[in-house]
């Protein structure tokens, strides 16, 4: 594995008496795609939120590019170079495609010292980004509420590809996509990784994990139940890790 980008060392998260994460340790290298698998409630989304600055861990530490790292807000994580695509879409449906694409990072020009939105420049960038990804949206000035689920997810995916950063977290990014768009989405992930960006993708679909990931990390009941290179494992072995080695006596599913 190449030089580690993000290292998690015994990260835990308690909600009152409930231990959602009991101590997670693994690492992600530059340009590596890690698929994070696990049953519902295993703690995948909690883990992503901790890395992305949406939640603070109860204990444990993280190293990002070799330095101690803890994001107290999504803004801090973004500043460090961590982009996140969440399961429930993070779009403002009351504004247009361009405004969503640039949310919080608008291009401005100064008029009398006051920052003014440069709509034309932003529209040009969005048009180029969407065209190069093959996404077709009738008008970039349409409010997102009038777009389909697939078009919305495409905007989010294009947004992360465009902004890149150093590490990308994807929480079930293809839930609303059709077959062709999913294939294109997986291509986008490989393309992003080839630029040296680390990618963590959470998915429920084994086939996607094996299509795109270099390494597969399985979380079960708040601990890492398996951490294997893709070419050294099989879907059946991974399913066993997710559910617990033996189906009988596996207990409640995390």
């Amino acid at each position, binding site marked *: 594995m190449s030089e580690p980008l993000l290292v998690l060392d015994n990260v835990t998260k308690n909600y009152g008496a409930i231990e959602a994460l009991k101590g997670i340790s693994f690492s992600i290298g530059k340009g590596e795609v890690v698929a994070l698998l696990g049953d519902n409630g295993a703690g995948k989304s909690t883990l992503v939120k901790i890395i992305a600055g949406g939640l603070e861990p109860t204990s444990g530490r993280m190293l990002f590019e070799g330095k101690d790292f803890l994001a107290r807000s999504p803004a801090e994580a973004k500043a460090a170079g961590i982009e996140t695509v*969440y399961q429930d879409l993070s779009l403002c449906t009351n504004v247009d495609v361009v405004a969503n694409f640039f949310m*919080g990072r*608008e291009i401005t020009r100064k008029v009398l010292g006051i920052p003014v939105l440069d709509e034309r420049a932003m529209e040009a960038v969005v048009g180029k980004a969407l065209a190069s990804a093959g996404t077709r949206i009738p008008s970039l000035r349409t409010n997102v509420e009038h777009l389909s689920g697939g078009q919305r997810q495409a905007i989010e995916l294009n947004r992360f590809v465009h902004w890149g950063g150093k590490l990308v977290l994807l929480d079930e990014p293809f839930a609303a996509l059709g077959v062709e768009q999913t294939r294109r989405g997986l291509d986008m992930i490989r393309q992003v990784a080839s630029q040296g960006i680390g990618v963590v993708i959470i998915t429920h679909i084994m086939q996607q994990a094996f299509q795109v990931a270099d390494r597969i990390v399985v979380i079960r009941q708040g601990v890492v139940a398996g951490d294997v290179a893709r070419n050294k494992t099989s879907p059946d072995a991974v399913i066993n890790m997710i559910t617990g080695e033996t189906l009988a006596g596996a207990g409640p599913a995390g």
Partner: protein
Amino acid sequence: MNLRTRHALEFVLDNLVWFMLLLVLVVFSLFIPNYFQLGIFANIIEASSVLGVMSIGLALVIIAGHMDLSVESVAALSAMAVGILFCSSGIGLGVQLHPEWLMVPVSLLLALAVGGLIGAFNGYLVVKVKMSAFIITLASYIWVRGLVLVISGGRSAQDLAPAIRWFGIQRLIGLPLTAWIAVACFVVFSLIMAKTPFGRHLVMIGGNETATFRAGIRVNRNLIIAFVLAGAIAGLAGWLLAIRTSGATANLGVGLLFNAFAAVVIGGVSLKGGVGTLPGVYAGVLLLSAINTAINLMGLPANFTQVIHGLLVLAAVLLDAFKQTIRQRLA
């Protein structure tokens, strides 16, 4: 549908309230004797200046997904503070400053500061303590009005210093300067909302607060600024109100809140947040004022005003739902 008709249709939908205003003015001019005169139109703009300024602050907070019920009481408190200091009879202290014009910036800053402070208090409780804006600002609506009663003892201040009143008397192109101040406020805040990142962020926060937080926008900071602005703008409305009545009474401005709500809703702002523009709100304010003037001219009892305003709000909400269905077809 070709692109031209589509654009035309969207333009009409975006500015529907302006077309309504135009229609109402044409109908009134045709059917009400003496309605069609410049003086009447100037009067419509003049009469709507206080309500207009107050509606801007209310609209900002509602667009950001919250609520400010305290604007009316805040305006009254600012007006009372200005009245007590700079009025010469009643409970007025008749404070004199030299040179005289110095009273203008001092009274204005006082009004803005009173409003801004209460806005900051509201904003802090809503954003940091995470309480419902409806309840917090309802409480402010009550206690701030109470404070007006306490500091005035229920009495009034009259005879505002001439240097300040000058703004209500001096006319420019047929309108008093107070009306120009209201128009300028609409222009400035419309530009802020439409053209600056701050305005864009407020609209997006009103649409999906979680998404904006995840995108790294400083949601809390922006919301507190919105509340402070709403308070300060209400303070400005109070300053204009004190000029207009040349003083302040304990029940000054009672009922303005509901007119401001009506104007904001008629202007196309959704109470759910994230939808609406300030030019629309101004059209809503003018529409209310145009109807009031018509009622006056026709000699109807003033009590009809309230019935008509209520029906107008209902019509605005129904129209908004209708607009939504058309837009969905367009997309």
